[in-house]
């Protein structure tokens, strides 16, 4: 790739991703200013490292990975990962008291706000896999590569994240 054409080529690929990247950053940080700093930082890092990007590989996943790494090394990310959010065996996670059944999940309207509130309450490592899978529609293997975790861990986090979400939504419906 020619030196001079690099920023243009990068901009052409990266700018259309600003909306999903910002959305993901905001869900990770839950703060507008932090999300803005994070996205900006990710774009600067990505441009710097663009020469290492292999054309023909998954640019979108590459950008998300850079953003997520920037989050992990940010002040807020460091703080969040210091908290033992998850034990993969399940001891650390406090499950909602209400058990959700398929019937209760199918009955009654759940508002967008209720789902957003439940997503916000999800521990960050469940939240990120749910967002990458459901909102960004990434494949399990893409998520595993992006987060640098085994495929089985992706699957178990998705299953447990959804279980937590449904429990929270069932609780919210009971409170109505």
């Amino acid at each position, binding site marked *: 790739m020619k030196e001079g054409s690099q*920023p*243009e080529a*990068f*901009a052409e690929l*990266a*700018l*259309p991703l*600003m*909306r999903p990247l*910002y*959305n993901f950053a*905001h*869900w990770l940080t839950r703060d507008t200013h932090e*999300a*803005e700093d994070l*996205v*900006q930082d990710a*774009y*600067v890092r990505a*441009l710097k490292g663009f020469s290492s990007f292999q054309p023909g590989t998954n640019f979108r996943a590459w950008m998300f990975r850079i953003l997520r790494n920037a989050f992990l090394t940010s002040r807020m990310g460091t703080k969040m990962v210091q908290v033992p959010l998850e034990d993969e065996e399940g001891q650390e996670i406090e499950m909602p008291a209400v058990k959700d059944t*398929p*019937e209760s*999940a*199918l009955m009654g309207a*759940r508002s*967008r706000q209720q*789902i*957003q509130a439940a*997503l916000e309450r999800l521990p960050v490592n469940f939240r990120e896999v*749910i*967002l990458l*899978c*459901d*909102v960004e*529609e990434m*494949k*399990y293997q893409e998520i595993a590569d992006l987060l640098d975790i085994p495929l089985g861990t992706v*699957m178990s986090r*998705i*299953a447990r994240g*959804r279980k937590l*979400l*449904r429990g929270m*939504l069932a609780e919210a419906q009971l409170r109505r």
Partner: protein
Amino acid sequence: MDCEFWQDKVDAFVDDEMPSAQVRDFESHLRECPACSAETVARQRLKIETRAAGQRFMPSAALQERIREKIGSRKQERWQWWPTAVGVAAALVLAILAGQAWNRAQMRNELAVQLVDQHVATLAAVNPVDVVSTDSHTVKPWFAGKVPFSVDLPNLENTPYSLIGGKFVYFQQAPAAQLLFGIRKHKISVFIFRDHGNTSSLGEESAPVRRNGFVTQTWSEDGLRYFAISDVNGEDVRKLCEMLKAAS
């Protein structure tokens, strides 16, 4: 194989990650098992709701501009011809008008790019639409209660077009309907949303125009904005738009 075998595989089915050989077995199990069917539908519903609720945050125009500056893609449009001979007041008026036009063009491009992204993402998705049906009498009522307007669909009988389905999306922080049509091996997305605020800057296109390699056409009618996009030729897009206009 019983429910216990399948219960930890429901997510893989919902996420389209189940091997195809297993999908057939699971589907035949679902036909016989109301409990697993209900569980699968509940998880499918949660996935659809999460997708809609998760598309929540939009980068501000200021952030977008800052990032463009940082990565050096900002288009430098400076006034090279400052008219010294013209009075200051007249120059200011010109500058304001030009600035407004530039802003409108920027906004129009930005909105169009977002819709192009959405169309591309839909085509790349495992499940491109939320409601899969060629029947307009299924798709139209499916949107009722999801979007704050009625989604009128044309009669496609004896035309080369087919309805593939519909999808509930969020655009400019407002609910919108995305219809997916097929023609030969191509797809056409038609977005419908309330036309207000920024979206009115999309303007009117009486004929299709080419944008980022796609053909688009947009118009506004009765407070609703329609935006069609595809990689087919302009004539195919125009004809479908005419049918949609006649149906609304």
